[in-house]
């Protein structure tokens, strides 16, 4: 057991595998220690909303049985995992950070959850997030904000703030998040961990509670690029329960981590370097210098439609959300406000159940889709989205990867931006473009500010070029000594 207590909060997937193989600990011992640690440490951050000890220990027992019988226990064997509470887990409460679903116990598992456990992963519990994944600070959770493990007066980012915080805090080895406009990469950046948004359709969204279906992704958070690659390997691939999941063959992501980035052509989009805080700008510049040292060819490029991305995104995302959230009407999902008529029951349930940000987005989405406005807003946004995607397509004829900031600023103070929704939306500018284009993108740590706040660097590549993205990120992480 001493092998556990000395290393548990910094374990990588490889270390768990070696410890299990050498019989330093069993999967059950590790799961129990991980649950104990997570419970003890959680009050510091509020990152977990609830734990799933029975499920975790049952999964760990299965891993131990396989180890004893000599069966392959899977690439994630015994690895403590946290799952964002917008991804459904059979028999384990899934709240989406919302009062409306406070008591919702899903009758089925998300495909990503099934695949995690098939690979031997141990789900410790569900992580806090902005309500229905709407937010950039985790302050929109009905169950209280998450505190950044590096600075408890600051936000962890959002919406996957809990998933980023548990990985940074060491109360899970890896976590699943979801990304619609930056909700994996921005908290990864704020918490100093790796966060990956794969190509649209690479990971099945079956069982991901829908926010904006043309933008939603499930993606991993981890302390190293290799761990993120291993998790993606386990959950990616075609799923007949999600008709938007991709048929593209699944490459071996770990095999791509060969350090061979000499000659990689990297584009720095001019539009992404305006309006950065000076410390973020300096750290990204140092990161770019490191990439040059590794032999990458760096050039400036232009993605001219960038300045329209926030407006485009907040039309498409809210329009889709207004439709997806219509189902929370008091009939099927646990919470109902009593009323005399059916119509009043719908209205009162939704009025009392949704928080301020969800209401704002449902209202905006309903407005842009309402009679007479469709062409001016939704159709216009779909055209602008095509221009943004075209910018990337053109850029990738000249470069192999794009490097950019994740957020203009490091983690801000809790309460600092909550009363200015437009300012909060505008800070998503560098992450929403990747979601709009559907390309793979990730945040990899690139250093800390003078005050000790982590800053992430973003890498974006062509559709399905996760191998190229991971290769570059892994070489960068090793050269800079940035692994968590």
């Amino acid at each position: 057991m001493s092998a556990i207590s000395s290393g548990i909060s910094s374990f990588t997937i490889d270390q768990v595998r070696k410890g299990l193989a050498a019989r330093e600990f069993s999967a059950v011992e590790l799961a129990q220690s991980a649950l104990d640690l997570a419970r003890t440490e959680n009050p510091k951050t509020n990152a977990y909303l609830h734990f799933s000890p029975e499920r975790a220990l049952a999964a760990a027992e299965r891993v131990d049985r396989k180890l004893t019988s000599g069966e392959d226990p899977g690439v994630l064997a015994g690895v403590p995992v946290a799952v964002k509470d917008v991804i459904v887990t059979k028999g384990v409460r899934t709240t989406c950070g919302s009062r409306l679903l406070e008591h919702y116990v899903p009758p089925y598992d998300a495909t990503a959850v099934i695949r995690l456990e098939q690979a031997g992963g141990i789900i410790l519990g569900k992580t806090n997030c902005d309500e229905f994944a709407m937010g950039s600070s985790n302050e929109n959770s009905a169950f209280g904000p998450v505190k950044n493990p590096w600075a408890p007066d600051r936000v962890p980012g959002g919406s996957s703030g809990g998933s980023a915080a548990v990985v940074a805090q060491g109360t899970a080895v890896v976590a699943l998040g979801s990304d619609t406009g930056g909700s994996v990469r921005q908290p990864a950046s704020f918490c100093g961990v790796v966060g990956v948004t794969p190509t649209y359709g690479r990971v099945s969204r079956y069982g991901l509670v829908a926010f904006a279906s043309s933008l939603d992704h499930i993606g991993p958070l981890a302390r190293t690029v290799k761990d993120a690659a291993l998790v993606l390997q386990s959950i990616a691939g075609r799923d007949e329960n999600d008709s938007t999941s991709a048929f593209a063959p699944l490459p071996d992501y770990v095999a791509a981590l060969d350090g061979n980035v000499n000659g990689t052509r990297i584009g720095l989009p001019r539009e992404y370097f305006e309006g950065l805080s000076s410390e973020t700008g300096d750290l990204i510049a140092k990161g770019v210098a490191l990439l040059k040292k590794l032999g990458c060819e760096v050039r400036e490029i232009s993605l001219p439609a960038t300045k329209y991305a926030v407006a485009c995104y907040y039309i498409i995302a809210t329009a889709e959300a207004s439709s997806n959230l219509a189902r929370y009407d008091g009939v099927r999902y646990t919470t109902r406000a009593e009323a005399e008529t059916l119509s009043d029951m719908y209205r009162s349930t939704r009025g009392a159940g949704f928080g301020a940000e969800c209401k704002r987005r449902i209202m905006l989405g309903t407005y842009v889709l309402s009679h007479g406005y469709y062409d001016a807003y939704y159709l216009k946004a779909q055209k602008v989205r095509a221009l943004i995607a075209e910018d990337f397509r053109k850029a990738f004829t000249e470069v192999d990867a794009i490097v950019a900031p994740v957020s203009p600023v490091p983690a801000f103070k809790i309460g600092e931006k909550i009363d200015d929704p437009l300012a909060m939306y505008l800070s998503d500018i560098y992450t929403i473009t990747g979601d709009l284009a559907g390309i793979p993108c990730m945040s990899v740590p690139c250093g800390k500010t003078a005050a000790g706040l982590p800053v992430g660097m973003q890498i974006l590549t062509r559709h399905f070029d996760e191998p190229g993205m991971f290769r570059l990120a892994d070489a960068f992480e090793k050269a800079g000594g940035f692994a968590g």
Partner: protein
Amino acid sequence: MKITEKEVRYVADLANLKLTGEEIVRLSKDLDEILTHIDTLNELDTSNVQPMAQVLYDAGENATLREDVERPCLDNVTALANAPLAGAGYFKVPKVIER
């Protein structure tokens, strides 16, 4: 003003959202700011641009179809387990038809 309080009330009605007077005031201000920002899209000439209706699709048009064969689905008890109010195997709601 891009949006009036009257319009906010109308949209809330479409969205089945009961809002307080305070929320209506606040939402009018917030939506006005956001819609004003959204107006920047009008700077772009998109008359020759095809709308992006599909993010990414890498297979033939029938590839996502499966054979029409029966499969087990959630049983009635499980499907109703999260209902705020159920009875006789159904979701129950306030009366909608006058006798």
